[in-house]
């Protein structure tokens, strides 16, 4: 038995939104796809787009100690310092985040366009070709002053 995901429909459904997998029986959402619904066992699912998420945590690799450092608790209100221009010998810092897609999940590990403002910030979710694969990214919500958060 293996999961049947109606990919054809997915091509039309979601634009550049981040596509996750929703169980056709119970509505449970996961990413990436599983072999059947891990919540109810049903084996039919459909792709659905998620376009907004809440930032749960983030980090940056590899940064050689120079790039913005996410704090925790009270420190996280501080905006990180701007990232210094990369040394040609050094890889560019990669910002990674854990984001809960709103309103019904799932929790995603995503690539961030830029360091976020604070934990709990609302982010726009989208897909981008990354290392030859279509993978989830997050960036600021459109028309929102990032200093105000969400």
């Amino acid at each position: 038995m293996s999961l049947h995901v109606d990919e054809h429909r997915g091509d039309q459904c979601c634009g550049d939104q981040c596509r996750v997998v929703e169980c056709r029986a119970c509505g449970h959402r996961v990413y990436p796809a599983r072999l059947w619904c891990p919540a109810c066992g049903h084996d039919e699912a459909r792709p659905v787009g998620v376009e907004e998420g809440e930032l749960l945590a983030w980090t940056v690799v590899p940064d050689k100690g120079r790039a913005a450092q996410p704090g925790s608790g009270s420190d996280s209100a501080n905006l990180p310092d701007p990232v210094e221009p990369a040394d040609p010998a050094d890889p560019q810092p990669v910002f990674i985040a854990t984001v809960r897609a709103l309103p019904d999940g799932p929790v995603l590990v995503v690539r961030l366009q830029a360091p976020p403002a604070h934990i709990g910030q609302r982010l726009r979710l989208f897909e981008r070709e990354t290392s030859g694969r279509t993978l989830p990214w997050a960036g600021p919500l459109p028309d929102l002053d990032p200093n105000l958060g969400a």
Partner: protein
Amino acid sequence: MSQAQAVGLRPEPGPCIVAVGETPALRHPEPTCSTAGLMAQAIGQALRQVGIAPAQVDGLGVASFTLRPDRAIDLAWRLGLRLNWCMQDELGGASAINLLRQAWLALEAGQAQTIVLVSGDHFTGADFAGLVRGYNRSAQEYLSPLGSAGPNPLFAMLTQRQMAQTGLRREDYGALCVAQRGWAANNPNAAYRQPLSLAQYLEAPMVAPPLGRLDCVPVVSGASALVLQARPTGVHVRLLASGARYNHDEQEGDGLQTGIAEFADGMWRQAAVRPEDMDVVSVYDDYPAMALAQLCDLGFAGTDDLPGFIARRIATRELPVNTAGGQLSAGQAGAAGGMHGLVEVARQLLGQAGARQLQNPRHGVVTGYGMVQLRYGMCANAAVLRREES
């Protein structure tokens, strides 16, 4: 409970750990070093300790990422072991206790009389990078291409959430690392034995904030082994109770609580001892945050005052935790990292811990944790052990 216990007769001895062995943790192994060679060294050491000849071994359990293309049975052949029981386990940091639980059942059922459990790995830099990049399908097809290679970024985010939830600061994680380094000073097999100061911990380069280099285990080559017997004599270590949870939350929780929290109460009840009875503790320390999470799950601490718990109980050695230095100081030899803590608690209870030997420890508890999926480890297990003599 055996029949003899049920009718009130003297309890039968039952299966026990009788010996342990461990190679030095090698940061720069010789070109001739091999996974199987390291395993043979650890097994040989353990067997010699109790005068058991290889010909008496009739069970073998193996955990390794780098033994390929050989498997457990090939290792048996190369060691000349003729077996009634043979198992291979790939649960990484949870493999040792998983093997221990299975070996126990096999000995109780009479499937074998003398079982050797061994775990070990030998890495070159490229081997290790390849292992973490392709650790499982999610790593290979999702996280690594995304730019989140290996466990560090995931546990950086988990540590960040733990800091926000508990008020732990980098200085507190540092105090745990400093305490473990203090123990490592008396473990001749440890990769890092020189004293570590809090300032050195804090000054170490950032790897994935808030994780610095000293929050991450040094990758080493090495092997660990245990010998178990169905009817031991002399000093031995009995398994009082154990528990395990594999994929306990489908990776949909926050990772700050492991599956141990689900079975800890039952395990303590079955063992008829409590956390406060433990004389020695090994918790799986792939990162300081996970060591603390497991200590909470076991019932040693609450999340309300972890900084105080570290300062008052761990730093003072009032609660001896990871007394061989843990993986953070002794090093993580791949799957052998999962056996390091078990070997240390058994070694302390057997009274063979040399300069770091605790005074007459009677009870110990060990945890295993690992197999990172999308966000954190999927596997967690624990075992309560007691020293006995007959």
